[in-house]
């Protein structure tokens, strides 16, 4: 039986058989993998703590017939602080759900994304910034890596630079902002307007400040973005996150379940 070594972050676990766990792991070397942690549900298991979601481990895996088996696991990071704050824990689990959804599409960027995710979890655990702001930065970095970076500088229809006065609405299919001029002319054409799905709610919420924050978040590292939190109004941040989330769900083609819980707790 051949073995290989990877460094991975546990994303989700399912009970398997009497005492085993099936873990979905995002690894720096191979992207998303699934592996069995034998006996991980037994109280005395050495694997129990290492098989928990959000744990970072160095793993030695044995290639199995259908599923690989974890032969050895060395704990690297466990983020105990996340497990003492419900909001931060919910955000961390949302990151895990995002990774489960989009992880397979990151074939060439797995190592970069692995570092991004690990850093994002560290920042969340450190509790130095508003978790909503950190989450927006993480969402936009993920979209960037996936090639879905939203166009926020030029109108996606006329390609004219967007100024505060020209901001129209965010179009999910086109992945960017449509300026006021293009938005109005399209509204005059019923056939075209029907074929496009404008989020009118999102359009109402768009303010120049929201987009400035989005642009800022795209261009800066999560650590330096933390500084912007104190000056950013909460409402704009909430609106920006709502737009980013609806765009992510549109790209994923499914609803992110962990967001429901986050909404309930916030």
């Amino acid at each position, binding site marked *: 039986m051949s073995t290989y070594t990877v460094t991975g972050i546990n994303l989700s676990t399912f009970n398997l058989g009497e005492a085993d766990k099936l873990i979905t792991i995002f690894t720096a070397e191979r992207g998303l993998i699934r592996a069995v942690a034998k006996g991980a549900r037994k*109280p005395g298991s050495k694997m129990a703590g290492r098989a928990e979601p959000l744990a970072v481990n160095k793993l030695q895996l044995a290639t199995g017939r259908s599923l690989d088996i974890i032969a050895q696991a060395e704990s690297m990071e466990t983020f105990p602080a996340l497990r003492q704050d419900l909001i931060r824990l919910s955000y961390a689990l949302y990151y895990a759900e995002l990774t489960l959804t989009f992880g397979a599409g990151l074939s060439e960027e797995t190592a970069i994304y692995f570092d991004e995710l690990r850093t994002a979890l560290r920042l969340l655990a450190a509790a130095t910034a508003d978790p909503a702001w950190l989450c927006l930065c993480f969402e936009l970095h993920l979209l960037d890596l996936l090639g879905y970076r939203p166009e926020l500088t030029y109108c996606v229809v006329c390609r004219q630079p967007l100024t505060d006065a020209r901001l129209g609405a965010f179009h999910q299919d086109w992945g960017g902002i449509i300026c006021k001029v293009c938005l109005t002319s399209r509204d005059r054409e019923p056939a075209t307007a029907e074929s496009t799905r404008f989020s009118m709610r999102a359009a109402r919420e768009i303010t120049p400040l929201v987009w400035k924050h989005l642009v800022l978040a795209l261009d800066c590292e999560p650590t330096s973005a933390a500084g912007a939190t104190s000056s950013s109004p909460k409402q704009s941040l909430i609106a920006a996150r709502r737009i980013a989330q609806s765009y992510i769900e549109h790209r994923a083609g499914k609803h992110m379940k962990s967001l429901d819980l986050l909404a309930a707790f916030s």
Partner: protein
Amino acid sequence: MYFTRPLARLIEEFQKFPGVGPKSAQRMAFHVLAQTPDSVRQLCEIILEAKEKVKHCSHCFHLSAMDPCEICTNERRDTQTICVVSEPRDLIALERTREYKGAYHVLTGLISPMEGKGPEDLSIRELIHRVGSENVIEVILAISPTVEGDATVLYLNHLLKPLPVKVTRIAFGLPVGGDLEYADDVTLSRALEGRREI
């Protein structure tokens, strides 16, 4: 087609049981076929009887053929202490210890954001009502120290804190027979936090 239709259906149904794979399902199906018609009929009746009679207790949500269940109606139990568990299986594990003599409340699951399972899917509202209306002194949270378990404990603590009741959580740390060298960071840090004088 390896199996005749009725046998294939039986194997298919056994495979739906948790932890049962194709091979185990085949073994179970062949075992059923090797039994006498009377014993198979008896098995079917037992399954049906269990399904029809065993329900969640309307008070504590434990599985029982009685409502309220045997534990809730037991007058020798201390009703001022409620031990909160996630599943009936956990309640049975605690009962096996013969250490606890209070009442129980089964949540029927844990908060699991990844599975979209929120507080409204559990019997949390009923627990808060019990604590508010009954003369409860202590609520013991006997919930597994997993990510889902921790999320549920944080949420319950948030709801129970304003009430005049003592909220405790069962101790966790190194398991009996466990090896300190192989313990992970979270287990060790919690074992250190929960240390006690000997």
